[in-house]
């Protein structure tokens, strides 16, 4: 492509007649569905829900403007809101660090020259493809107090059974354990791909220099894997803040709100009580939390993510 293809006369008609212009027209045709989708299914709803968050609205009447009332009520008068924030935080802190570390260790183990790698990988991956709903239904049964397999195992090991899902103390840990189990295989696969992307030369050179396995892990694997770790962490945090299905299927947010998460509360307020304005405000708070955490992670990554040694 040379300058000769630019139009002699300027203006829109000249541009449209040129090669560059025809290219642009074709491009717009290709992205047209996406642009329409962006406007109809994303941008407008995002703006509309911002507007609704400043209104009182039960879906039947017209929304009534009431400025910041929803947000004020949410932040200062509604104890349930803070309980759901605390529960969601508990869930995120319970699942993300443990899940990431476990996945990393297992990925390293699977990345050794061992037999049956494919078999292990397949087995680890089975829960990932299963829906959270099916998995929750299964673990609802596993956690059952009297006949559940988990308590049977505990009794076998000489412990006493726990009333997992009907206990204020244990309901959230139960959901956390299950969710780690469910998502482990996904992160393992990502970490294995990352490990295989680290050039073998580094390890060979370190071996010549007399480094032991621990030093190699600390000084080669960890830093060179950090972009992948960053990806896993960012995605896990975004996803786990939106936890819903587990609570919906297993506990309905109970007992005594012990597993009520932000999204579960939003669902209740919006689609059980039809407080659409209030639910919109909740959605926006969730939105702000996720965006700030993501931006923070992107800012913070400069301190710990290495793209080369």
């Amino acid at each position, binding site marked *: 492509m040379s300058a000769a293809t630019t139009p002699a006369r300027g203006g829109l008609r000249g541009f449209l007649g040129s090669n560059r212009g025809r*290219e*642009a027209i074709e491009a717009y045709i*290709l*992205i047209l*569905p*996406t*642009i329409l*989708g962006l406007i109809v*299914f994303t941008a407008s*709803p*995002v703006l*509309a829900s911002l507007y*609704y968050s400043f209104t009182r609205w039960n*879906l039947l009447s017209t929304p009534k403007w009431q400025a910041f009332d929803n947000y004020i009520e949410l932040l200062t008068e509604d104890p349930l809101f803070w309980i759901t924030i605390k529960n969601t935080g508990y869930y995120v802190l319970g699942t993300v660090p443990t899940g990431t570390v476990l996945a990393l260790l*297992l990925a*390293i*183990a699977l990345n*050794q020259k061992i037999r049956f790698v494919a078999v*292990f990988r397949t*087995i*680890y*991956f*089975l*829960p990932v*493809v299963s*829906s959270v*709903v*099916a998995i929750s*239904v*299964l673990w609802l*049964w596993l956690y059952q107090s009297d*006949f559940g*397999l988990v308590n*049977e195992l505990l009794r076998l090991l000489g412990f006493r059974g726990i009333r997992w899902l009907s206990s204020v103390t244990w309901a959230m840990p139960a959901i956390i354990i299950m969710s780690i*189990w469910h998502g*482990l*295989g996904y992160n393992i*696969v990502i*970490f294995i791909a990352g490990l295989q992307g680290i050039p073998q030369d*580094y390890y*060979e*050179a*370190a*071996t010549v220099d007399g480094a*032991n396995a*621990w030093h190699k*892990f600390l000084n080669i694997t960890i830093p060179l894997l950090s972009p992948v770790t960053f990806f*896993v962490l960012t995605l896990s945090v*975004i996803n786990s803040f*939106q936890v819903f299905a587990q609570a*919906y*299927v297993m506990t309905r947010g109970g007992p005594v709100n012990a597993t009520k998460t932000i*999204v579960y509360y939003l669902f209740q307020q919006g*689609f059980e009580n039809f407080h659409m304005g209030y639910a919109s405000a909740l*959605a926006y708070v*969730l*939105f702000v939390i*996720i965006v700030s955490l*993501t931006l923070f992670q992107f800012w913070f990554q400069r301190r710990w993510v290495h793209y080369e*040694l």
Partner: protein
Amino acid sequence: MSAQDATPIGEARTTAIPGASAAASEGLTSYRVLHITWRVLLYAVLTLVGATMLLPLLWMISTSLKEPGEVLLLPPKWISIPPQWGNYPRLFDVLPFDLFLINSIKIAVFATVGALLSCSMAAFAFARMRFPGKNVIFAIILATIMIPFHVTLIPLFKLYRDIGWLSTHLPLTVPFFFGTAFGIFLMRQFYLTIPQEMVEAARIDGCSFIQIYYRIFLPLSKPGLATLGIFTFLGSWNNLMGPLIFLTKVETMTITLGLTLLTNQSGGRWELIQAGAVISILPIIVMFFIGQEHFIQGIARTGIKG
């Protein structure tokens, strides 16, 4: 650290084994012992984790084949003789599981086709064409990945109610024909690996860009399309929130939503509930075994991005 030195000691090439470097000087016996201990430990841990992953799923199947009385036996029985296959047909009497399956397949297929078409088109423009506003539009699309679905939920619910889409499958399929941020990003990454010379050669032969897209890029990007297809299908099949909000009539429900209904309605009939769970994941598990490499490479591909 330079990588130029070739390893003089052949043994040391088996990396990441503790004591491997010491072995050369201290003789082979202590190295062997360490090596074997390490391997045994490795297999033990991997097997233990494997059992933790597999046993609950096997328990799901085991429970689904029991008589009601057997379910509550202690200590638990793993294999019921004879297996109660009748639990599965019984499921279809309790709730219309046949409809649930058909609905789920229909929704997932349409969503997948929609995402493949719309995302591959847009991604091609963003990867290989020049047009005013390209970078801004692409940045906006990328930023939408951060928007939680729940922020758009209430206005979309109102929209679908107003145009009569509630309790139809349209809210769960039509939006996929209008691009998804993740899909566009994934396909664009894939297209960027196809050499630019192919575009230029085709241009010289007089192909339009749209022709280049469907004659060259679509056929060459089959692995990328497989990844996107799998993700979309899986996401659609496993989705709870969308169907829960948009589908209120029982006969329109998906299998995932139907399973929650079964759990609520069957009053502790664990053998039926677990049979429902098995049915709901069986199609996906079968797909996984057939296209395992695509699944796993797909996930790996989304992880390592440029």
